[in-house]
Structures are given as C-alpha cells and as structure tokens.
C-alpha cells in the first residue's frame, strides 16, 4: 500500500488551499472528501466576501490571517484565473454612539494592519452609495474588501493541485483513524489510506475527526446563517459591500455583492445543534429583510430569486490551528468560521510551516505549475468577445440557461472538469441559478451530464446519492 507524505481530510476551501500550497513541494498528497464533489460543505454557502480584516480583535489569529489572506488571494486568483473584485466595504453609522464605535473599529483594524481605512461623511455616502438610507450619518470605508466566487475558487484550486500531483478522493468518508508506529492508518468508506502526516480540515466535523485520535478538547458548534439572493437586475443596488454596526435590531445583516453579479442580503447568525440543518426559516427571511432595509430601504422581497443557509464551524471565538503534541504529525485546522474564506491562503501557508517545523521536509519542485487557464464564463465577458468565441466553437452560441446566458460548451466543460451533479454544474457555471431556477434548463443539463459521464438519466442527482432528480425513465427502462 502507498504511504502518502500528507493526507488532508476535507476538500473545502481550507483543505484545497492546503493541498495546493503543499503541491509546490516534492510530496505525495492525498485529499480526502466524503461528498461526491468538492466544496459541498461550508465552502459552498457563505457570503463570498474577501474581508479587509476589520471587526476582528487585534490579538486574534483570525484577524492576522484575514489581513494576510486578503493580500495573498490577489496573487492566487490571478494565477488560477478566478475573478477577484476589489469592491470596497462601508460600515455605516446612524448616530453618535455608532460613530464612537466606528472609530474604535478603525483603531483596532489599524493595529491589525488593515490598509487605507477612512471615515467618509454623509456627502460622500450620498454621492457614492445613492440607495443608502438617508439617515446614515457617516461610514468607515475599507477599500481592500473584495468578492470572489467561493466554490469556483475551490474547484480551481483543486484542479491546479491535481495538475501538480495531488490525488483527490471524493465519496470517501473517514470513519476512524489509527496512529500506528510510523504512520496514520485512515479507514474510509472506500478503503484504507496511509500517511506520515495528517491534516484535519473537516469543517463542521473537525471535532469528530480530532476525536478519532483521542483529542477531544474542542467542540464545533454550528452557527447558522441564512442568505437571500436577489435578481441580477438589481446589480446596482449597492456599489460597495455594506455593513451595519451590530445593534439591537440588526445582528449584522449585510448588503452583499456576489461574483455572479447578483446582490445578496444576509446572513443571520443563530447557534444550532444539528450539523446538517441547512433549512431556511420565515423568521430568517423576515429578520434579514428588516435589517437589510435599514441599510437600503428600497429592497423589494419580490426580487428574491434564491436562498440558502450555511453553518459556520465555530469553536469559541478564534481559529484552532496547531500541531497536536500528543499525536505527532497530526495538525488540526479547525473552528474555521468567518473569515475563513478570506484567510484560506494564509492558513495554507501557516499549515505548511507547522508541518515543516514538525519534521516534514519541504523540497521545492523544479517545476510547479502555478498558472491555470481561466475558465470562460459568457456572463463575465463583453458580447463582442462572445462573438469571436462562438466562431471558434459553435457550442458557445448554444445557450442552455437562458436567464444567466450559459452555453452548452460551458456546461460540457464543467462536466469534463469534474462536475458530477446538477449542483456541481450550478456552482461551476451558474446554470439553474437564475430567476427561473432551472425550470427551463434542467432537462437539457441532465442530458449533457448523462452524455458526458455515460450515466443513465435516472441516476443524475442534485448533489449525490439519494437526491436523484427523477424516479423513473419510461422511455429507456
């Protein structure tokens, strides 16, 4: 049996970032994921914000890694061809007390090293954020805040990691782990793996993985966030990411811009018990609407086209990233709540350093393929450019998802690059993610998936076994 140098459990943004970072070195790496596809955990359902680093306590690990991550992500997104847009963020004040709070936040953020912060006055707000509630008196402007597609980041990191030699195993659930003499024996739903080092990046289940090695000193408490996506038509609702100050009526519901072009409002924050409870609620939508309208009063609930909930894998107030002395070679990367997406590149570097300190020899590969060819998304490019693409490949002119303008070519490419499910296609391409919610394009996408993967239509799922789209095929059975 092969012994990997490093096995990483969990292919969310943290696990894939670590895998890609380690793929610079001469190492055999296995990335192990229980779901059918990558990014099906927390990393698929978040706000997609690359935070500047504000709103973190100065001494915190998450604050430091957030500021570093905000810098590192720029290079990585360029290398991988994932769009990162620096849109800037505004934290808005409504009264004297708020202003004091803003100044406090500014000071704390400056200690952390957040660049470019400034207080902007009412006139600035009126000019630069016309839909903002006119009761706003001033704001804290953080220019380095940005947005990214969280799932496309994971897919592109993974694709690049594989190019550099990482082996990825999906549909592979870790069941128990044994620390043998020289290596870890990782027992999974698809067989035994062996590795010299083990990184736990299992998100919501990191406490369970850690427990398998007898380390039980932390618990992951899911904190639910419900988010509501608005029609692309409202893309101009806000020019920046807009944050309130936490107050009695608002728990920090934001006006978000997404990489797909849709505005989004949310998230709520509610501590729950069930790690698989991704339901949204009437209370959630009402709270989000009320809080979002305090920032932008014109928000219309008729513009809501989709919604979801995500669970922040919280354990206390900060990240837990450490080598476990009682279990040499085992690194916990746990409790990666917000701003985990932002911090992910910095977490990857930190993890590599921890591995090195604990005896893993990091020898650079002579050839590391840092760059990846950018995936084409028609909705991101000018129509004239679309025209020349169509000339090169006719299938770019064959539009499947009409609400979001996604072509048959983009969908078959997504499948060739690893999409196995309807959600996998949606996250990679955005097809089915628009205002008709797949009513028009579901059948066509099913057929492309079936054709490309040689799967019968009846086995096509939304997101893995048990979520089949249809029950019977009356023509082919």
């Amino acid at each position, binding site marked *: 049996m092969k012994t990997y140098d490093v096995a990483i459990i969990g292919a969310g943004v943290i696990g894939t970032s670590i895998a890609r970072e380690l793929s610079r070195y001469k190492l055999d790496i296995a990335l192990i994921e229980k779901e059918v596809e990558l990014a099906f955990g927390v990393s698929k359902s978040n706000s997609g914000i690359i935070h500047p680093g504000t709103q973190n306590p100065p001494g915190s690990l998450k604050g430091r890694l957030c500021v570093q991550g905000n810098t590192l992500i720029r290079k990585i997104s360029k290398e991988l061809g994932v769009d990162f847009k620096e849109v800037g963020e505004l934290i808005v004040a409504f009264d004297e007390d708020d202003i004091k709070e803003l100044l406090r936040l500014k000071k704390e953020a400056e200690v952390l090293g957040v660049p470019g912060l400034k207080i902007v006055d009412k006139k600035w707000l009126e000019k630069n954020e016309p839909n903002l509630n006119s009761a706003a008196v001033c704001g804290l402007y953080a220019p380095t805040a940005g947005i990214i597609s969280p799932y496309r980041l994971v897919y592109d990191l993974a694709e690049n990691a594989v190019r550099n030699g990482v082996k990825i195993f999906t549909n592979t659930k870790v069941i128990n782990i044994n620390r043998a003499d020289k290596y870890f024996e990782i027992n999974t739903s698809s067989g035994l793996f062996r590795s010299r080092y083990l990184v736990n990046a299992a998100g919501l289940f990191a406490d369970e993985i850690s427990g398998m090695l007898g380390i039980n000193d932390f618990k992951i408490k899911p904190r639910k966030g419900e988010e509501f996506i608005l029609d692309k038509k409202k893309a101009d609702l806000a020019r920046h990411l807009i944050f309130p100050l936490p107050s009695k009526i608002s728990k920090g519901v934001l006006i978000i811009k997404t990489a797909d072009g849709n505005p989004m409002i949310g998230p709520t924050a509610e501590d729950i018990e069930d790690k698989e409870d991704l*339901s949204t609620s009437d209370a959630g939508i009402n709270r989000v609407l009320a809080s979002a309208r305090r920032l932008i009063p014109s928000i219309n609930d008729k513009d809501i086209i989709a919604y979801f909930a995500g669970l922040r894998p919280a354990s206390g107030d900060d990240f837990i990233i450490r080598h476990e002395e009682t279990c040499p070679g085992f690194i916990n990367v746990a409790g990666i709540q917000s701003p985990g997406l932002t911090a992910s590149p910095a977490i990857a570097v930190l993890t590599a350093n921890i591995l090195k300190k604990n005896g893993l020899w990091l020898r650079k590969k002579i050839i590391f393929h840092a760059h990846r060819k950018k995936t084409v998304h028609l909705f991101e490019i000018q129509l004239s450019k679309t*025209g020349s693409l169509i*000339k090169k490949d006719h299938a*770019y*002119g064959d539009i499947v998802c009409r609400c979001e303008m996604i072509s048959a070519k983009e969908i078959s490419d997504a499948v060739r690059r690893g999409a196995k499910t309807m959600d996998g296609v949606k996250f990679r391409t955005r097809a089915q993610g628009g205002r*008709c919610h797949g009513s028009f394009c579901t*059948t066509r996408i099913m057929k492309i998936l079936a054709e490309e993967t040689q799967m019968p239509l009846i086995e096509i799922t939304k997101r893995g076994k048990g*979520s089949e789209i249809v*029950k019977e095929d009356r023509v082919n059975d």
Partner: protein
Amino acid sequence: MIKRGLVIVGGGPAGMAAAISAYENGVKDILLLERDQYLGGILNQCVHTGFGINYFKEILTGPEYAERFIEKVKNIPEIEVSLKSIVVSLLPDKTITFLKPGRLETIKAKAIIMATGCREKTREMVHIQGTRPSGIFSAGLAQKLINIEGLLPGKEIVVVGSGDIGLIMARRFTLEGAEVKAIIEIQKKTRGLLRNMVQCVEDFNIPVYFNHKISRIYGKDRVEKVSACKVDDNFNEIQGSLFEIKCDTILMSVGLIPENELIEMTGARIDGNKTSVPGIFMCGNCLKIYDLVDGVTEDSFLTGKLAADYIRVRHPSLQR
C-alpha cells in the same frame, strides 16, 4: 450592421400569429427569432386537449394548435425563421443582438414585436422556507419531463397552488400511476379554469385544500414531507391547524410572470400592445398572462397589424 424590417422575438403562438398578421397586412421583410430548436413555444409540451375552442371552434392538443400556425409560417417566404437564436440584447434604437450556434449577430430593425412568453413563479418567489432537496419542480418543468422526455419526476405528489398547469399535471401524474396527495391553494378558490377543476381534479378525487398554505418543506436529499396549515384572510397561519403530508415531490403552480427582461433593458414603458419606444410592440404572454392560447392568438393578430400600420407610415419601402 445588417438592417432588417420587422423582427419578432419569440416563435410561440404569439410570435407566429404576429408574423402572419404583419405579412397579411402588407409587410414584406419579417425575421422571426426563436431560441428553441422548434417553433410553437410552450404549446409543444402541452399534449392535453382544450386548445382552439374559441379560435378554431375545435378541440385540439397544444402541438396540433401550434402546427396549424407553423404550417402557415412555413408557407410564407417573406417570413424568415431563425431557430436556436436567442436574443441577448435589445437597445432603444432597435438594435438587436442574438446568439446562435456558430455566430453572434447584431441587426438593426425598423420595427420589433416582442413575443417572449412567460415563466413560472418559483418556490423562492413565494418564499416557502425549509430545506432545498431534490424533488421540487415547477409544474411546467414536470410537464416537460413527463411529456417530452418520458421521465417520471416522482410518485407521491403535493401540488402547491391551483394554477391550470398544476391542475393539468395533477391529472397527468395520476394517470401515470403516481399519487397526488393534495393540492394546496392559499386563496378561497382556484386560480385555474373551472373546466380544469372538474376534469382534472374532481373526476380523479384529488383532495384540494383551499385557504391553506405550505409552511415548510422537509427532507435532506429528497423531499420527505411538507407541513401545511389553514390561513386567515391575511394569509397568516391559523393556530392549531398545522398538519403534515408525506410526499417525495412538490409541484409549484403559483402563477406565471411575463418574461420582460429585454424590454426592461431598453427602459421602455409598456403601453397596451405598444411601448414608449415607437416601433417596439408586445404581444402574448409577455404582455399579459392569458388563460387560453386563443386569447394570445387574437391579441397577436392585432399587434401584427399595429406593426404593419407603423411600417406603412414610417417605412413605405418595406411594404409589399
């Protein structure tokens, strides 16, 4: 840039009737753009009967109704049909950009008729909360899956809303051997046609709950059940009325909305069959939701004539 006479966007019953009417009223250069691979629009998936009672005084299926117009359109050489052609941009100066396999084209039209039809409201638009498993379909998608693809979406069905497509699909699922557990309608009475209530629901003993709504969807991977409750006049839950229905499939039939994103792009105001941009007209279900396709046809004949009148005055050279 290629210049064209009358460009019609959408080859459903509305677009086809408008094209025929414009031709009959004297227009000679007509381009009909349809994004699908065939003409007929939504009618292609409506294999049930009940079409044409007013217009043809006959009872036809959807495809039969469409076929009569498709034949006519094919026999008029002045109407050029371009299939698999999706319009992606419309400007107030009547510049139209469309994509088709192999090329992107931008053309300038003298007049335009929008006949882009409608789409169905989704679960998200009526804000039903709970989980997001597989097994939630718009009634029209379920119709397409069964009638066109031969795929049965599920076996234990709850229909949300009593729009015509939902009623027709309730019957269809029953005929396919599935069990329709309930039709849940928030209003006091159906939104659909009386004839569909009788022929599709009562004749099959499907339980209908008026003044009820779905309050939550359950199920992790696949729909497992819904909870429903009785509502008061403000559509709020009446305490103590909550009950659950086990099911594997939910069909949404909560209304249709016009597909008007292209018109919105121009900033034009809709004013009857005309718009605030002279020479841009609208007809069929993108203008207003018709219960019966016969109404769409009549409306579109009128619009075709309006466009022809406009062309006669402004661009006499385009007259036959």
